[in-house]
């Protein structure tokens, strides 16, 4: 809770958190908030400009851009979050196992992680999509497949640090069971670490999924998705460039909010980073995760 308090002091963090939370909420309640059916074709309103009834105008099939934008939150943000949660769970479980039990389990898992991590993210996603065919589910599956190793690696390191801490040894001496020790002592300490890793990959995943949809490899028409909307807008880009604006800006706003939040989280977790002029001694440690993060993007 200390972390949350420190985070709340940072105004940028509060603002970014509100943006992300609002986006998620609007996405969840899309049917109640969206003024129109996102797939309702109305050829008379083709390329209509903004009006009181259609705040952001209409697209090439006369569909309500605002409603499509709101429904697009689901695949563009919510599903990505779900994939992230899934890979975090898998990674966390395996990472815990590796860091806690050590030995052969650890060695085997880490070799697998090495292999997964040595694969560039984009290539991996394209390979999975190429194998299973285009579609949103397949991209999400590819995300889970390549992200878990990353979580496992980070969480293993965190667990290794704390598995040796005196209070955990003490609990072991007292005869607390493995699961109990994990739940009571290691989880609360490793949780902030997980938060930083997931928030830092969240932004790049949103960018990536919309990118793939833009290429036509993701969600299939007529579903609304931000990348898909841009793809549709692209065919009329030269005559109606304004259709590129709304989905593009939505992506930028959400991704920057996520990135800001992730940076604030890191600062809140490691106050050393805040005192500027004195960067942390472990220069490379902070550099490499960032490198990996973009690698996946």
């Amino acid at each position, binding site marked *: 809770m200390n972390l949350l308090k420190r985070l709340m002091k940072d105004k940028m963090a509060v603002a970014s958190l509100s943006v992300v939370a609002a986006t998620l909420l609007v996405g969840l309640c899309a049917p109640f908030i969206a003024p129109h059916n996102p797939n309702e074709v109305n050829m008379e309103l083709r390329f209509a400009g903004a009006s009181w009834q259609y705040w952001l105008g209409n697209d090439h099939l006369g569909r309500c851009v605002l409603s499509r934008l709101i429904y697009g939150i689901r695949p563009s943000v919510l599903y990505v979050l779900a994939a992230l949660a899934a890979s975090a769970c898998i990674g966390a479980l395996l990472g815990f196992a590796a860091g806690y039990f050590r030995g052969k389990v650890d060695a085997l898992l880490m070799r697998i992680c090495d292999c997964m991590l040595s694969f560039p993210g984009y290539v991996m996603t394209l*390979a999975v999509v190429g194998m*299973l065919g285009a579609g949103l589910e397949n991209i999400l599956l590819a995300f889970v497949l390549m992200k878990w190793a990353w979580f496992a690696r980070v969480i293993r390191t965190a667990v290794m640090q704390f598995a040796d801490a005196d209070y955990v040894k003490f609990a072991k001496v007292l005869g607390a069971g493995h699961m109990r020790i994990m739940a009571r002592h290691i989880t609360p300490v490793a949780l902030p670490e997980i938060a930083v890793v997931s928030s830092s990959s969240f*932004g790049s995943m949103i960018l990536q999924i*919309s990118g793939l949809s833009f*290429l036509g490899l993701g969600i299939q028409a007529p579903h609304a998705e931000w990348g898909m909307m841009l793809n549709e807008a692209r065919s009329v880009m030269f005559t109606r460039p304004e259709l590129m604006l709304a989905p593009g800006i939505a992506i930028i706003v959400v*991704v920057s909010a996520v990135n800001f939040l992730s940076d604030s989280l890191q600062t809140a977790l490691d106050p050393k980073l805040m005192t500027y002029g004195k960067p942390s001694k472990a*220069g490379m440690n902070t550099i490499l995760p960032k490198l990996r993060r973009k690698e996946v993007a």
Partner: protein
Amino acid sequence: MGGYILRRIAVALPLLIVISFLAFVLNQLSPMDPAEVVLHAQGVPTITEELIAETRAELGMDRPFLIQYFDWLISSFQLDFGSSYVTGKPVWSLLGPALLNTLKLTLVSSAFIILFSIVMGVVCALREGGWLDLSVRGFSFLLTSLPAYWLAALMVWYFSVKLDLLPTSGMDSISSYILPVAVIVIGYAGIYFRMIRSSMLSNLNEDYVLYGRACGLSETSVIMYVLRNSLQVAVSVFGLAIPVILGSTVVVENIFAWPGLGTLTVNSILGRDFPIIQAYVLVLAAAFVLFNTASDIINAAFNPKLRKEF
């Protein structure tokens, strides 16, 4: 040094084998029968069981799994990745020229990315907290949140359509490079700039900088010390960056209709042309391992301490 290079290559080889195996398995895991895909692509009207069995035998798919793999691996070394299911042309005759085009784009972009991020990273670190530092950092933060294809589309609209200065697509002249390279550089320079900057800063706070100054060395010599040590990080960072950029030109190529790997792969995915996808995965993964190994070796040449590890 020679020993280090050998050890490093000895680590890379098994990784390549594993990757090639994965690339091969991927194909086998597909829910669709390649024989069916081929028949569909050839426009055969009615697909019978016998026809499928015949095609499977033709493709060599009735043999044991491991034999198929080794056959494929050996012919891959000779750049023979089989034939495209869709066009029937040898894969390499499609992939080779596309790879070359993508490499051109990647190398030109990487050169600019390296140039920009080093110059800006060094300048901003030396002026830490100044207005230039703050504005470049803010700007680079914004750029990392920008979808590259969106930016690309806007640039095409503005520079090619509105101002009619640059070609919208293709790869005909030097000016065709300007827009795609700009989009890639904008997408990546921000990240690598931040790495160079933080590497510079952590080096500037090292004791050897203080001692160098305390010995009366000029600021230029001290900064040369810092540069030499910070750029070591840069070598490994860029060693990893080049294959990453190579793999992520997909979107940019698609927008600018660049006749490269990305365009080819996306079309192959949409057409379910497995041999091309397989070859793409293999070639890029191999490039990744190669660049990784090369950058480690270059780094060890700079920094003798690293040679002891491994």
